[in-house]
């Protein structure tokens, strides 16, 4: 008995040691970015890992916005996000309502279609998607990423369907007794009750669109259409900025998703977990 307790307290120590190591590995690169962002160029090269001399030195941030076109990047990605996420949620809830509440011939086919589409790796088919985008004259417009982000994915449908199935059909039926149309049932009963799922999906979708590099890089090479991903990418090219200025840029770009994550962890963890259960 005593021996096993000793063993378990040793294991507890081991657990904490490994956790602290993991925290260090996760936080160390972030530490160097955060401190680097506030250092002057000379300071960056000389002070090593020390804290910056002046914690209120915002020069690097100013430079990043001036040379990096980050302001433009944030503006463009905001426009794309609002339209794409709103459309995406609208279509996602509509598909889930249609598939969850009605039986019809093509139901299984449509479900299967979403499942198989998930399996097709997006990166590989871009060569052909490119010609579709060109055909619709969407190349070098914000329409290209928007339309590519618009479609519902299987994870979204699965999460929504779980919710739709948990809404009692009695609600629909009593609304029908009162003469509500099916559209009204979708709009006033189903859509609002999907709220928690929508919150999760809005967050996950926003993070994934904000982080996407490939789509804007391929379809919007124009300087005026820079988004955050492509703006920061310009920092590493031949005209690379100084390391301290780059650090400031990285820090700014990290902030929005970190803020979303920290304030809404519950929704994010819920979404990630239900994705795996499928």
């Amino acid at each position, binding site marked *: 008995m005593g021996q096993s307790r000793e063993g378990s307290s040793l294991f507890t120590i081991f657990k904490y040691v490994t956790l602290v190591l993991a925290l260090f590995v996760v936080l160390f690169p972030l530490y160097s970015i955060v401190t680097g962002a506030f250092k002057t160029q000379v300071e960056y090269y000389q002070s090593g890992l020390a804290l910056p001399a002046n914690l209120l030195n915002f020069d690097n941030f100013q430079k990043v916005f001036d040379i990096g076109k980050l302001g433009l990047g944030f503006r463009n990605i905001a426009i794309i996000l609002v339209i794409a996420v709103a459309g995406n949620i609208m279509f996602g809830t509509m598909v889930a309502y249609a598939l969850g509440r009605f039986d019809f011939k093509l139901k299984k086919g449509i479900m299967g279609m979403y499942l198989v589409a998930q399996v097709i790796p997006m990166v590989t088919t871009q060569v*052909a998607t490119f010609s579709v985008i060109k055909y619709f004259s969407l190349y070098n417009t914000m329409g290209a990423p928007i339309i590519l982000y618009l479609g519902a994915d299987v994870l979204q449908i699965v999460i929504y369907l779980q919710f739709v199935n948990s809404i009692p059909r009695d609600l629909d039926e009593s609304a029908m007794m009162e003469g509500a149309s099916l559209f009204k049932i979708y709009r006033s009963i189903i859509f609002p009750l999907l709220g928690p799922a929508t919150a999760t999906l809005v967050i996950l979708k926003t993070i994934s669109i904000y982080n996407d590099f490939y789509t804007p890089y391929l379809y919007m090479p124009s300087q005026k259409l820079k988004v955050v991903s492509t703006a920061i990418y310009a920092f590493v090219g031949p005209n690379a900025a100084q390391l301290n200025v780059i650090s400031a840029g990285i820090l700014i770009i990290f902030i929005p998703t970190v803020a979303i994550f920290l304030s809404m962890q519950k929704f994010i963890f819920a979404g990630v977990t239900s994705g*795996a259960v499928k």
Partner: protein
Amino acid sequence: MHQFSYKTQRYLILFGFLTIPVLLSLTFSYYPAVSLLYYSLTDWSGLGWDMNFIGLDNYKEIFTKPEVFGALKNNAYYFIGGLIQVVFSLYFAVILTGKLRGRNGFRVILFLPYVLHSVATVIMFKNVYHVEYGSLNTLLGAIGLESWQQSWLGDKHLVNFSLAFISMWKYMGLNMVIFIGALQSIPDDLYEAGSIDGASGWQKFRFITLPSIRKVLELMLILTLTGALEAFDIPYVMLLGANDTSTFVIKTVDTAFKYQNFGLASAMAVVLLMMVLLFIVIQRKFLFKGGE
């Protein structure tokens, strides 16, 4: 809509709600996949619409030129990194599902890298790996390990490990949270019964935990494999695939957009698609067996 009978409304809803989403999926997932097959049999340059049908020549080129498949060697680093990462994420998921002070805080911090902007993350590591001023070499110097200092991105033998590490760093927390979800769905009485039978912690893990999360584990392994096959962002942003870090997708993208050979690039994409599908089919087969 009130004036229509519910039967008519049902048709209107089904038609109205499903047409656009289905068309989107057909246009941007299925049509590209099918036309990819067609382009792969042509010599299309990607400019204009002139193309000649050349049969299986593109495929012959892929399978006879060693440098195309050679790129898969670099994908292997991401696969190995992914496997190590699955082990770590399972370990941390297990200890962060049990009773532990500060559990939620640890979960949040370990998950944090996943939400960070992907391109910015790679550039951050470019700073960390910098030979002279990078924080990694500075740290090693500060703790007296100068001999461990390396040219993390310059050394040909090291660079792919350095890149694969970024992928591990980014996705460990995500996999951990997925595992935590799976672990939490295991009923407690299984463990209680195990305790009554006198099972040790390791035995409980081996005979209760592992079998219960087998499906998620398999899914994770297949995602690791397909993710490694599709590795692109990290080596592309970091080095544009230079210094022998090109992965299969980088080769494909370069073939299409840099060398203007869409036909060959399409054939490469089809080969990759087939590999991914093959692994998924294998996994589904295994899954069905496991489900019995």
